[in-house]
């Protein structure tokens, strides 16, 4: 039950979830933990019932808004004075972008897959011996991150950057760091650029007739709510400015929207390469918002 709680609230009732007992950190709510344990038995060891119980609880359904005073008194939300708000695990960071861009291949199970990774990691002098990493070009390229093939000696770089353990020792609780290397990954990793492109094209195709409709569409796909007026203004300013920049020929829009500028993708009817490039920039910005990779 402590681990269930940890999954939903980001931190267990006993924070040291790998170590629960006399030498662990004491529980923040011992009665609650006991009650959950007994309830679990009383409900016939029904895990789904317990998940439902937690997510429908008043504690979980609170707002994650926090005042400075409340934050000072309870910085880690150990008193459960608000709903949890935390950055999701590395695998989900990637899956969110795949899903939002429409690229996600939802297939379940099967052998591990080889999404794009920098080739130099798998050959000497970085690797001790050459390793095989044949990048998937078909639908396997966009499988959920948990299906990524893992070499313990060469962990998948994006996941490693987002605190996924390398498998050297068992792990029931991850760190949750926030580093510039993570920003570089979600901004510049070629796979993330592919996802920004895909979201841009999907938005142009399906997002409605006006830029306003399209911004709402792209924004909702990433954070599941409509943008506010000020958010809308900021995004449409970016859209207009970059569209102008690409249209003026300061930058070649085809370089952004295609791996090979000589073979640009099929653009939606009436869309110009400059427009597709500007939408790629905007999509990339939305995919990189704190809120996009945060559970709140």
């Amino acid at each position, binding site marked *: 039950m402590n681990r269930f709680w940890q999954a939903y609230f980001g931190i267990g009732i006993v924070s040291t979830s790998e170590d629960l007992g006399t030498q662990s950190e004491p529980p923040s709510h011992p009665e609650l933990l006991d009650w959950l344990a007994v309830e679990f038995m009383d409900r016939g060891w029904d895990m789904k019932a317990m998940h439902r119980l937690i997510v429908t609880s008043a504690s979980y359904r609170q707002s994650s808004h926090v005042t400075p005073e409340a934050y000072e008194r309870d910085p880690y939300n150990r008193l459960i004075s608000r709903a949890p708000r935390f950055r999701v695990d590395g695998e989900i960071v990637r899956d969110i972008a795949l899903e939002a861009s429409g690229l996600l291949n939802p297939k379940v199970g099967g052998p591990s897959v080889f999404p794009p990774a920098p080739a130099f990691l798998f050959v000497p002098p970085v690797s*001790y011996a050459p390793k095989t990493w044949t990048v998937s070009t078909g639908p396997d390229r966009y499988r959920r991150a948990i299906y990524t093939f893992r070499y313990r000696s060469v962990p998948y770089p994006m996941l490693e950057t987002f605190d996924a353990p390398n498998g050297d020792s068992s792990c029931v609780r991850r760190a949750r760091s926030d580093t*510039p290397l993570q920003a*570089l990954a979600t901004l510049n*990793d070629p796979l993330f650029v592919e996802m920004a492109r895909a979201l841009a094209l999907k938005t142009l195709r399906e997002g409605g007739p006006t830029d306003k409709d399209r911004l709402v569409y792209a924004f909702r796909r990433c954070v599941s709510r409509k943008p*506010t007026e000020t958010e809308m203004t900021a995004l449409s300013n970016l859209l207009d400015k970059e569209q102008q920049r690409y249209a003026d020929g300061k930058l070649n829009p085809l370089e952004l929207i295609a791996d090979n500028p000589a073979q640009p993708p099929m653009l939606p009817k009436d869309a110009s390469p400059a427009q597709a490039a500007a939408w790629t920039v905007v999509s990339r910005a939305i995919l990189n918002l704190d809120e996009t990779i945060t559970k709140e």
Partner: protein
Amino acid sequence: MNCQDHLYRSEDPKGRTRRWFFEQCAVGLGSIALAQLFAEAGAAATTAPANPLAPKRPPLPAKAKNVIFLFMAGAPSHLELFDYKPQLAKFDGKLPPAELLKGYRAAFINPNSTLLGPKFKFEKYGQSGAELSELLPHLAKVADDIAIVKSMVTDAFNHAPGQLLMNTGTQQFGRPSMGSWVTYGLGNESKDLPGFVVFSSGKKGPSGGNSCWGSGFLPTVYQGVQFRGSGDPVLYLSNPRGIDSDVQRDSLDTISSLNQMRQGVTGDPEISTRINSFEMAYRMQSSAPELMDVTKEPKHILEMYGAEPGKPSFANDCLLARRMVERGVRFVQLYHEAWDQHTNLVHDIKENCVDTDRACAALVQDLKQRGMLDDTLVIWGGEFGRTPMVQGGNDGRDHHPNAFTMWMAGGGIKPGITIGESDDLGFNVIKDKVHVHDLHATILHLLGFEHTKFTYRFQGRNFRLTDVAGQVVPQLLA
């Protein structure tokens, strides 16, 4: 694994158990200093989300602030480089005494193989009279600045376990590496570079793989970040094609302003951390190429190291290590995996020395002339030594854990000394034995940590780099 206990520790007095009382209150001054360390971390945590890499003071007075570890992976032969054995030359081609081999296990050879005399000439150098091989003419020039330890011993006789023991204090993977411990304890002085940086040169990467610089059960922010000598030094540092620095700037401005709006709504101060990370990433996009660009170094410095701009090499990495430490990077580790001479010993070790000797000596000299050697600890060595017995016809040696040589310089190390001694054949250590755990204890001591008190709680017990062993080597301290 990857616990964040340090963030929540020492907050609730009711949380003190009897065990805690006995553990922490019976150990005297060290614990007070340590408590101070935690109190500082704790105090920071209540005012703002703690930056796990913020610089921290060590609990005890320190001589060294930064570390550069030149890891000669593959294990260089002490018998060809540092530990001259005339008796070994005399008994070349003879079998070693049977009692020496009792209980001895070699990695590949039948231990009952004939002895192989040293392949190179030795001479004494400097005022200290350090005895060095003719293969190390440049190191000879800084002989009076380094401390040579001829009495290293380890427990492992294969590369991966040996490298893991040297880096993490245990032969199995999963423990935090030395660089992770040090950045965990001291944080990072650099604002736009990682605190623990790893380079790899030579023929291949180290056999221990990423676990050599892994963070084990420490938070992953403390693991080593691999830099490359060519291309993007850090993964995903360059903007995607079709995005220039103006578009990147506009994008970051938009992301920041939207993040700020969201912070206004949720009140979550963690969003400020995210905004900072993006700004740091943007700064890193210009600071890392600037750091890697050695063309601006004066010609005499490039020549001193033997570095050539644009051509990845161990020499370039040594120069970059100095540039990193100058910018506040806490721990730099250079792997040069090339020393595993089971065969072709004479040719290959010569080549390795050509590749590394000049740069190693230049690093010591360069740090010294900049006044940086006083608080930068330089460590040179591999995971074990090589057998006095022959392998591969008459031109190779097998792995040997019983005796090998390392050297250290700066950061509170006594310069111009040689400590320890191996027996007449260079087989066993006979004087001032220094186990890998003792080396770790000494390194931590120089950085201001009592190695038995520098712990991290994981799965119900306190772990340390030296596990349950290790003693500081007093002869090495200045």
